[in-house]
C-alpha cells in the first residue's frame, strides 16, 4: 500500500500541497482527481522521489523510499523522458540493463500489441505513439505499483482505446495503480477509488462502487459538488 500522510510542499511562496493524506492499495486502481495545477503531478513525483516535500511522510509497503524500491514501482510520466536520438530498442535495452525486475518477454508482447517498431527513434514518435511506448516502459517492469501521470491527456481516440484495453487486462490486475487525471470521462468505469484534491488538501476520498450503490452518485457528480462549490 502506498501511504501518503500530511505532505506539504511550497513552490515559489505558494502552498501547493497543504497536508495531503490518502492511501492507494495493491490490486486497486486509485485515481487522483483535481483541476489543473492542483498538485496531482507533484504528488506522484513526490512519491517517486523526484521532488522533495517540506513536510509529511510517504510510505510504500511500510518503507520509506530507497533506491531498491524502484524495482517495485514504475512511473509513467506525462512525457516520454528518453533522449530523442535513442531508438526504441535502445530504450528497452536501457531498462533491461538497469532493472532486475524488467520482463523482456512482456515488453516484446506489448510492443507487438501496440504495433511499435524497434527501430523507431524516440524523437520521431507522435504523441499517441509516445504514450503507448511510455506504457510499455512502465508495464515491462514486474512492479507492484504503477503510477501514471495524465495517461490520456492529448491522446487520440484509437490510442486511447488501446491503452484502455491494457488497463482491463491481467497486466494490471495484481498491481496497485495510482493515476492522475483532470478529465475523468470514459475512465470512470475503470477506477476503484477516487481521491479529490482541492486547495492543497484532500477534499473527498471514496470507493467508487460504494459511492454509486449507497449514494447513487457517480464520480462526476461528486466532482461537480466539490469543484463547483
Amino acid at each position, binding site marked *: 500500500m502506498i501511504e501518503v500522510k500530511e505532505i506539504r510542499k511550497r513552490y*515559489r511562496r505558494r502552498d501547493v500541497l497543504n497536508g495531503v493524506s490518502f492511501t492507494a492499495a495493491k490490486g486497486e486502481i486509485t485515481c487522483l482527481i483535481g483541476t489543473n495545477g492542483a498538485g496531482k503531478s507533484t504528488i506522484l*513525483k513526490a512519491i*517517486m*522521489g*523526484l*521532488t*522533495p516535500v517540506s513536510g509529511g511522510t510517504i510510505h510504500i509497503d511500510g518503507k520509506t523510499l530507497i*533506491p*531498491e*524500491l*524502484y*524495482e517495485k514501482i514504475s*512511473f509513467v*510520466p506525462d*512525457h*516520454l*523522458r*528518453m*533522449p*530523442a536520438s535513442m531508438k526504441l530498442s535502445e530504450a528497452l535495452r*536501457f531498462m533491461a*540493463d*538497469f*532493472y*532486475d525486475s524488467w520482463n523482456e518477454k512482456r515488453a516484446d508482447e506489448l510492443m507487438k500489441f501496440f504495433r511499435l517498431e524497434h527501430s523507431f527513434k*524516440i*524523437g520521431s514518435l507522435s504523441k499517441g505513439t509516445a504514450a503507448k511506448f511510455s506504457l510499455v516502459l512502465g508495464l515491462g517492469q514486474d512492479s507492484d505499483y504503477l503510477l501514471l501521470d495524465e495517461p490520456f491527456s492529448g491522446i487520440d481516440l484509437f490510442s486511447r482505446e488501446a491503452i484502455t484495453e491494457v488497463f482491463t487486462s491481467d497486466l494490471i490486475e495484481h498491481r496497485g495503480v495510482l493515476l492522475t487525471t483532470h478529465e475523468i470521462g470514459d475512465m470512470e468505469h475503470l477506477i476503484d477509488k477516487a481521491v479529490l484534491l482541492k486547495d492543497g488538501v484532500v477534499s473527498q476520498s471514496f470507493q467508487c462502487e460504494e459511492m454509486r450503490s449507497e449514494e447513487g452518485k457517480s464520480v462526476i457528480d461528486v466532482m461537480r459538488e466539490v469543484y463547483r462549490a
Partner: protein
Amino acid sequence: MNRYLKLVHMEIHRFRWILIALMGITAICQSSGLIWTLKKAMAQLEEQKIQGADMRKYFDSVPDTLNFEWAMFSTQMWFILPILLCIAVLSLYVFFIWYRDWMGRHTFIYRLLMLPTARRNLFLAKITALLLFVFSIVAFQLIMLPVQELVLKLVVPVELRSESHIVDVININQALVELIPRQFEQFFYIYGLGTIVVLMFFTAILLERSYQRMGILYGILYLAGCALVVAAPLLYFGLDSSIIPLYPMEIYVLVLFLLSVVAAVSVWLGSRLLAKKITV
C-alpha cells in the same frame, strides 16, 4: 558497483561521436599541418642548396637536417588549435553533462533518478566519464606523437632527417608542455587539482538545480568557499603568518588534506542534493 559501471558506459556511449570527432580533428589537423610544414621545409632546403650559403641570412632558414622537434616548433598552431578545441568542448561538457539531462521535452533526468541505484552513482558516473574523456584525449595525443614521427620519417628522406626525443618535442610546443608535465608527480597534481575543480563545479550545478532562483547564488558561494579553504594555508599560514606560522612541509600536507576534504565534501554534498533536494 555494477550499475555504476553501466552508468559510466552510458555516459561514454552518449558522448562517443563527439569524442571520436575531437580525436579525428586532432589527428587530421596536426598531421596535415606537419606534412605541409615538412614539404615546405624540404623545398626551402633545395633552394638553399642551389642558392648557396648566403641565402640563409634572408630566410627563416631551415636547418640542414629536419627532426620532429624542429617540425613541432614550426607547426605549433596546427597542433595547438585542435587542442584548444578539445579543451573548449570538454569544459563546456562539464556543464552540459548535467544540463543535457534537463533539456527539452525528453528530460532524461527523470529516468536517471528513478533507477534502482544510489543517487551517488549518478554523480560518480558523470565525473568518472568526464575524467575518462580528458585522459583519453591526452593519451590519444601521446599516441599520436610517435605516429606523427613515423609520418615525418615517411615524408623526409633519411639523409635529411635526424632524431629527437619525445620529451623535447613536447617541450617545444607551448600547449603540450603545460598539458603533459615532465614528471608523473606533477601530472597527478595538475590533473588532480582539475578533478577537484570539476567536482566543485558539479556540486555548484546541483545546487543550482536544487534551489531554483537562489541556486545560482549558492553555487557561486560554494565555489568561492572551496577556493578560499584551499588557498588559506598558502595565504594565511606561511612563514610570516600572524596566526600560526607553518613549516613548508606542514603547509604542503595541509594543502593536500584540504584538497581531499573539498573533494570529499563536494561528492557528499552533490550526492545528498541528488538524493534529497533535487527537483524535476
